[in-house]
């Protein structure tokens, strides 16, 4: 019968029949609404979960914000710190300058007073005047006729070490003043700094500290030279004493040898 129908229907008719059958079958898809509802429920559930996560994120953000504004960087404490820095700087400045400006110069005579004023001038440009002032107080190295070469060398070396240290101290005083200015500048800037800009100032302070440490090392080097010269001086005197003893012994030997020769 199917064959009969197939043969009796043309191609166009067969296609038409297939379409009609498909349309007829579509109502069966009505059962998919349940699936759609299920999808909606899934979306609903997912959104609610996402909402829960968002709420957690919101709470976290709020907690972090509270931590930052109330614990780490509370504006009131930042302002309090700034005020403290400003007040402390103002208070310390007058106190420190009062102590710093106290005169410690104590020489009474003309030449020592001149030397002292140069030595305490805190002006490295005065280094050139130091040698003359030093010589006026401590005299120059004896002439070759007045002292043996060893003693003259020692005198010169002692003078050089002493003057070297005085010059280093002079330069060091000026450096100290400059460093105090750096400290004051940093402190004043700190009084208006923010927590974010303070590390930059802090780094600058560390750099200045490193430089200060380098100058301290230079000072210690000068001190070492001076102490070494002092030690060498004492030792040279010891050697000179040994040399004098040797000379005395030789002279005595010569003297003791002479009378016996004269008696003969």
């Amino acid at each position, binding site marked *: 019968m199917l064959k009969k129908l197939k043969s009796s229907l043309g191609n166009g008719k067969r296609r038409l029949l297939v379409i009609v059958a498909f349309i007829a079958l579509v109502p069966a898809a009505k059962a998919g609404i349940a699936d759609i509802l299920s999808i909606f429920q899934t979306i609903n559930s997912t959104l609610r979960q996402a909402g829960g996560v968002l709420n957690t994120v919101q709470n976290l953000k709020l907690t972090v*914000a509270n931590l930052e504004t109330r614990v780490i960087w509370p504006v009131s404490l930042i302002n309090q710190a700034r005020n403290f820095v400003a007040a402390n700087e103002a208070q310390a400045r007058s106190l420190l300058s009062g102590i710093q400006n106290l005169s410690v110069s104590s020489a009474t005579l003309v030449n020592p007073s001149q030397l002292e004023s140069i030595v305490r001038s805190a002006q490295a440009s005065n280094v050139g005047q130091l040698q003359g002032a030093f010589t006026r107080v401590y005299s120059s190295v004896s002439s070759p006729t007045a002292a043996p070469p060893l003693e003259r060398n020692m005198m010169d070396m002692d003078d050089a070490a002493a003057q070297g240290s005085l010059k280093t101290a002079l330069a060091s005083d000026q450096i100290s003043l400059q460093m105090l200015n750096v400290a004051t500048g940093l402190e004043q800037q700190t009084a208006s700094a923010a927590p974010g800009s303070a590390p930059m100032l802090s780094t600058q302070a560390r750099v200045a500290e490193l430089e200060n440490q380098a100058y301290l090392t230079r000072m*210690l080097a000068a001190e070492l030279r001076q102490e070494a010269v002092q*030690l060498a001086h004492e030792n040279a005197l010891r050697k000179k004493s040994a040399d004098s003893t040797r000379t005395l012994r030789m002279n005595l030997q010569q003297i003791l040898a002479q009378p016996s020769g004269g008696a003969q």
Partner: protein
Amino acid sequence: MKWRRFKRLWMRVRNKIAVITVVVFVLLLLPPKGHGQFGIDLAVIQTGLSVISNLLQSVVAKPLAAIQQIEQQAATFEQQVVWPISAINQAKATINQLQGVLVQTRQILQAPIASATLPTPKKLEQALLSANPGAISQVSANYTAVYGAVPAPTDAPQPVRDLMDMTDAEAQAAMKKAVELDALANVELQTAEQINQQLQGAAPGSAAILEAQTSAWVVRANAYTQSALAELMRVRSISLANQGAQLKFSANHTSNLRSTSGQVLQPAAR
């Protein structure tokens, strides 16, 4: 005749009529309402989408808006309180200004401090103030030229020669250490200058790295200072030991003198 024609016509159209009948029948079976296509109910979809929209507004959009507000407040707080650009620029300006002061400070130590006047001390002083570790090898010879060598064994007792040698050794070591320290101080100053230059172009976030680097150098500088103090302690210790040795030598001499005097005076007493 008519019947035959009718039959022929019926034979032609009967299949078509059958198909049309089937189609009409099928269409009659379709759902009476035209709400959906392919069997999907639009009302259900509308309701579902409406629920989703409400959910998006209440569950997602609301917290997101709150988060945005918090983020906005945090950004404002960070920009105005923690990292205000004005304060950062002020700090940079201060750093630039202080850099100038530090450069001037470095120039202060350039002032010449050499003061010796005689040729031999001048040579020694030149080596001592050279800040050149390569000049350390010249120190011993220049030192001996100024302060002399340890006397020959015939010219001084062995204990005295030992004392002199030790004293010379320490004095020379201190001088050499001073040359080293000057050279180290120069390296520290150069480093400080380099870090300062980096700092001028730094941001608050990168400044911390430079600070850590500077701190490491400060630790290093402190170590050098400590080694300098150790050398200074050695110099003073040797000086103190010399004073003690001097007393011991004097005591020995006095003892020897007493003993010799006793021997000299004994025959006369008899």
